[in-house]
């Protein structure tokens, strides 16, 4: 086992987590304002509908002669796609970050988690015996999931910075 990588990733994860705890103790979180609460409510609705739709489509696919997917992966993929919809809707409607919240620790954490999963996905077989497996597919799926959120957060931060200038 590559302990150097493991330790470095733990440190990478620990720094933003430490920051989060520090900010929380200082009561630096302002919560969400009323517009953000409404946006987040809509986001949860869309996320839930997406999750149900994806699960439905995947179950139909599993019942027919479509791509064979392991049950664990099927359930998890539906949930993660739903969560992704919630996250992206909130990001692009300015309801992802709380008031006074510093995004950088979270951006670092998202990057670290995406990297960890990319590293974990190396050399794993996604399709075994014609079935998309949980063991092979979860890491790459999570890496893509966190990368998409990270890229969207960075693009939105860049756009906001340009607008403010």
């Amino acid at each position, binding site marked *: 086992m590559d302990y150097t990588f493991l330790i470095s990733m733990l440190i990478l994860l620990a720094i933003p987590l430490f920051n989060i705890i520090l900010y929380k103790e200082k009561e630096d979180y*302002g919560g969400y*304002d*009323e*517009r*953000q609460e409404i946006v987040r409510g809509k986001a949860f609705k869309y996320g839930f509908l997406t999750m149900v739709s994806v699960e439905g489509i995947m179950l139909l696919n599993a019942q027919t002669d479509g791509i064979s997917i392991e049950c664990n992966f099927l359930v998890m993929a539906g949930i993660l796609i739903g969560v992704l919809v919630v996250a992206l809707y909130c990001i692009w409607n*300015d309801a992802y970050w709380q*008031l006074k919240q510093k995004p950088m620790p979270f951006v670092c954490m998202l990057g670290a988690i995406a990297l960890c999963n990319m590293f974990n996905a190396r050399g794993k077989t996604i399709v075994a015996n014609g079935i998309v497996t949980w063991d092979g597919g979860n890491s790459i799926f999570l890496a893509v999931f966190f990368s998409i959120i990270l890229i969207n957060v960075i693009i939105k931060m860049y756009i906001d910075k340009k607008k403010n200038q």
Partner: protein
Amino acid sequence: MKNLKMKEARTALGLSQQEVADKVGVSRQTINAIEKGDYNPTIRLCIEVCKVLNKTLDELFWE
């Protein structure tokens, strides 16, 4: 519909959207959305905005 009265009152006091947002306790994007007419604020938020901009509800939010 754009809330030009609110924008005028804010600029007359020389305040930025961020400064108004900080005083009211909402995000800058929320103040921007109210001014652009993209968000219909609650009466509680309207009152907070009026207090910060030294205006009455009628002056800022009555058409």
